[in-house]
């Protein structure tokens, strides 16, 4: 038997379905974004750790020039080292048919087979290499996908000056190359850089490295002191050209992945909980107001003998039904979105175990928070009414004694027509409510901006990094330091109209107990193609003696301008010297050190040599120039910036798009939820006055303007507030998000601001139109009768 109160509940809910739906929508969005982003983050995090465990990802890494394999046994004896594995790694140029751009492959020796070691391959297609077939290779999946390669295909490669065709037998993933980034490159580019695992003997023979290795992997015992282990490894490898051992924290792929995960974590743990809180606060307020409009009904229930308890329960049920609808929709939506986001990350991360998981506490917490907020709002409103004697509560609330706000004495306001004055007083009458509405509508703007501004920031980043600082069209890296005269040879290539040579050298920088492995880049005096910019965007140049650092690197080393850094060169001469830091460079990507190329060469004790060159090239001549470059024996790699950037942006775009769409939808839901419910409640409270005005001869339009005029004012205040909030939120978010590798600039374009305001205003306008229809249907005759 359904109780009378439950029947009332059912009919009330049916009657207020517009309000029920809009509130449920806000709840749904809050829960959906919470569930989607936290489950995505959890899925990524667990996939990473599962995959690292499954693939036995190494703990430490080292590169050497050439060391005898027998040294492995001594490395294994180093205290704290659990396992050692030596490898041979070489970068070669591939000669892919029909591909105009230069493509680099990293050949990595792989034993696999019966003795699975570290950094194991996860085979996706085909098979592993046959130990007896030196020409077989397994290709990294991202590269295979970008270049449409698969088992059975032959890959022509220039190996030690000879053109060999490698046979692809499998496609695989490796925990070491989740992000395949070449040293010195800021971003992964799967079309131009891939990994090929091949038989060790074949690789040794091809590069005259029989019985030697140039790369080693370690796992460490859990209690190992890393600095001590690295120092001992470095000591053993120093005679063989060791470049310094390092841990996962400086391994490129891991660093990219952990930066990405950290971003995900921050996004998941900051934005969605805020959304959920916003949704909860809104539901609390709106539900409270709805209950307050049922004042007479509550009084009547009390008058006919109901206790407070069943009345409170009645309205709690209302909250539960509304939040229940919102929760169901929110959880389903959140899981769908989470799956979609996790799916779009598979493309990006290429983690083999990327399974979608929803930790149970996530939806439970989200629902509990929404429910508690709604129930509190409803219960507080009921208690306020229940505190009154029924007879008193049955009368409409006593008319408020109005006062003129001081602002009305200001001249332009004093001169307003009375109708506008009514609108103004409607707002000033309940300043707290007006402020809440403005605040809530304003909140939808930063939410949209959060979805859209990434494009602005990335545009700005690309603009400054690639068009103001790194202005070369093509960067050529040589296999060994080369006489600077190479510049004349390069400048004669077709299409090349400017050449600058550069010298990059691997170093370890030490300041006190902190150290960092990076490269010092030597640039020319008055460089035009590789410029350095300071924080104010001014072009700066490294002095004849002294060094400049990326600001984030200085921060990491804990030093300031004027301090001295100990530089240990990790190749060739292996000199060590203290160099003063004379300035900071505002690189948005990567952590680097810069010197004048002449000063760097003197420090290294080498003559006028270059390890790379930056070229400015006409697009018309580019193809011919790239063809010629491929024939130059000293050229190890060629990078075409434009394409690298485009590839990267295309990948990011899909992720950003999903994210923006979710946020825009959520913001629109908030705007609709707030505006619609606010206008409905204002209408309920003012319908008597508004109907009176209609009787007095005001048109529907004029009456709507009085009620909705307040909304216009609220929107007009909410939009600039929302913009201001956007800048604060974006700035704060990026402060937390800033990683070592990237610094995303807090740039929000005009277009984004306008779009955010437009979406909010549109959502508000739709709500206003729905309420306008109700104003049109006001019952005029009723106002001539007794007040309800």
């Amino acid at each position, binding site marked *: 038997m359904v109780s009378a109160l439950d029947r009332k509940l059912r009919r009330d809910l049916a009657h207020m379905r517009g309000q029920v739906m809009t509130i449920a929508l806000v709840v749904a969005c809050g829960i959906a974004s919470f569930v989607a982003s936290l489950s995505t983050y959890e899925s990524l995090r667990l996939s990473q750790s599962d995959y690292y465990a499954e693939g036995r990802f190494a703990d430490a890494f080292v590169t050497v020039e050439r060391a005898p394999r027998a040294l492995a046994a001594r490395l294994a004896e180093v205290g704290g080292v659990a396992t050692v594995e030596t490898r041979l790694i070489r970068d070669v140029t591939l000669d892919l048919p029909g591909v105009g751009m230069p493509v680099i492959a990293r050949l990595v020796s792989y034993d696999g087979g019966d003795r699975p070691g570290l950094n194991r391959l996860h085979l996706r297609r085909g098979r592993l290499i046959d130990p007896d077939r030196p020409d077989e290779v397994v290709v990294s999946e991202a590269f295979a996908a970008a270049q449409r390669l698969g088992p059975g295909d032959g890959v022509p490669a220039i190996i030690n000056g000879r053109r060999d065709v490698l046979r692809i037998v499998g496609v695989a993933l490796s925990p070491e190359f989740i992000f395949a980034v070449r040293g010195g490159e800021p971003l992964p580019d799967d079309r131009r850089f891939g990994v090929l695992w091949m038989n060790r003997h074949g690789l040794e023979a091809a590069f005259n490295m029989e019985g030697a290795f140039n790369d080693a992997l370690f796992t460490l015992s859990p209690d190992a002191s890393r600095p001590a282990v690295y120092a001992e490894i470095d000591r053993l490898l120093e005679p063989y050209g060791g470049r310094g051992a390092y841990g996962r924290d400086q391994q490129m792929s891991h660093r990219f992945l952990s930066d990405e995960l950290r971003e995900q974590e921050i996004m998941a743990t900051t934005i969605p909980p805020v959304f959920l809180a916003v949704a909860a606060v809104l539901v609390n307020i709106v539900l409270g107001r709805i209950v307050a409009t049922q004042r007479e009904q509550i009084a009547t229930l009390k008058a006919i003998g109901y206790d407070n308890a069943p009345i409170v329960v009645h309205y709690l049920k209302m909250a539960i039904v509304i939040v229940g609808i919102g929760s169901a929709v929110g959880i389903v939506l959140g899981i769908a979105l989470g799956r979609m986001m996790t799916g779009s990350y598979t493309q990006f991360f290429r983690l083999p175990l990327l399974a979608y998981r929803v930790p149970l506490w996530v939806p439970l917490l989200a629902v509990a928070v929404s429910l508690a907020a709604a129930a509190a709002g409803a219960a507080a409103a009921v208690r306020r009414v229940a505190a009154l004697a029924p007879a008193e509560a049955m009368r409409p609330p006593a008319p408020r004694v*109005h006062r003129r706000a001081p602002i009305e004495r200001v001249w332009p306001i004093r001169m307003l027509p*009375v109708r506008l004055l009514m609108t103004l*007083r409607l707002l000033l009458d309940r300043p707290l409510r007006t402020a809440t509405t403005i605040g809530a509508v304003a909140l939808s703007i930063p939410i949209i901006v959060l979805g859209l501004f990434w494009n602005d920031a990335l545009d700005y980043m690309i603009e400054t990094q690639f068009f103001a600082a790194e202005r070369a069209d093509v960067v050529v890296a040589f296999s060994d330091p080369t006489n600077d005269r190479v510049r004349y040879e390069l400048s004669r290539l077709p299409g090349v109209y400017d050449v600058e040579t550069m010298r990059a050298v691997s170093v370890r920088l030490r300041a006190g107990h902190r150290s960092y492995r990076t490269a010092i880049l030597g640039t020319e005096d008055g460089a035009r193609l590789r410029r350095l910019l300071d924080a104010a965007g001014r072009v700066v140049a490294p002095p004849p003696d002294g060094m400049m650092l990326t600001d984030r690197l200085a921060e990491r080393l804990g030093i300031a301008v004027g301090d001295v850094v100990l530089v240990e060169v990790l190749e060739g001469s292996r000199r060590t010297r203290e160099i003063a830091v004379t300035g900071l460079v505002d690189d948005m990507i990567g952590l680097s050190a810069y010197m004048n190329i002449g000063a760097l060469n003197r420090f290294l004790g080498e003559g006028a040599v270059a390890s790379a060159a930056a070229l400015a090239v006409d697009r018309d001549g580019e193809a011919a120039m790239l063809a010629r470059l491929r024939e130059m024996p000293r050229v190890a790699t060629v990078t075409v910036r434009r394409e690298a950037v485009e590839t990267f942006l295309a990948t990011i775009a899909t992720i950003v798009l999903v994210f923006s769409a979710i946020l825009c939808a959520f913001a629109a839901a908030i705007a609709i939820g707030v505006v619609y419910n606010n206008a409905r409640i204002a209408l309920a409270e003012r319908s008597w006055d508004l109907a009176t005005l209609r009787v007095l001869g005001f048109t529907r339009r004029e009456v709507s303007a009085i009620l909705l005029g307040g909304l216009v004012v609220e929107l007009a205040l909410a939009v600039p507030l929302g913009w201001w909030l956007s800048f604060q939120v974006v700035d704060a978010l990026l402060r937390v998000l800033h990683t070592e590798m990237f610094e995303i600039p807090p740039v929000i374009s005009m277009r984004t601001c306008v779009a955010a305001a437009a979406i909010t205003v549109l959502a508000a306008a739709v709500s206003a139109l729905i309420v306008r229809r109700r104003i049109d249907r006001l019952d005029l005759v009723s*106002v001539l009768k*007794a007040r309800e």
Partner: protein
Amino acid sequence: MEFGAAMSPAHESVFVARGLSKTYRMGEVDVLALRSVDLEIFAGEFIVLLGPSGSGKSTLLNILGGLDSPTSGVARWRDHDLASADEGELTRYRREHVGFVFQYYNLIPSLTVRENVLLVTEMAADPMAPEDALTLVGLAHRLDHFPAQLSGGEQQRVAVARAIAKRPDVLLCDEPTGALDYQTGKLVLEVIATVNQQLGTTVVVITHNAAIAGMADRVMRLANGAIASIKVNARRCTPSELQW
């Protein structure tokens, strides 16, 4: 029926109803609120519509005021056809020609006395100054008070001032003293009488207080949706003479 027997020929007829009927659908049943009413009201007349609840007097007033349309019949205000007018035309009719006084005053609580009057004069073609309208009802000294600061009688006088400030052709009063005590009620009726006499505004008052009938030129009694009788007062009483 003799229409306007007491009226001089100079008085033109401003409101004409012929065969006016109104049927409401109340759930499953049709309620006949007006049954073929014929009626004529002349310029400057003071009419009192008397009748118990459900007699049709409110329906008649609503049609007269452009708040409702008849189901059938003719209803004309001068050259305005009220029976076939659409929502917009009725709004314009109310705005330009009709002043309303309600039983519960219906002042806008967030506007002061003066602003409540301004509300109407701002959209009228040839209004009085709000101060003049409020002087007429004896409230010139309370211009800046909000409704909540006034007594019921004062609020109703503000409502009258608001209704007459735009110089309407007709003042429609729905139980204007219904919520007031005896003395205050008389004060409000005096104001209405003054408006009728000094400004020449046609006044229609609906009430179930038969004592008020003495003020009228003509008294129409309604019963069961029809005019049961029309009484012409040879002499109009002043409100102070009324007793109830």
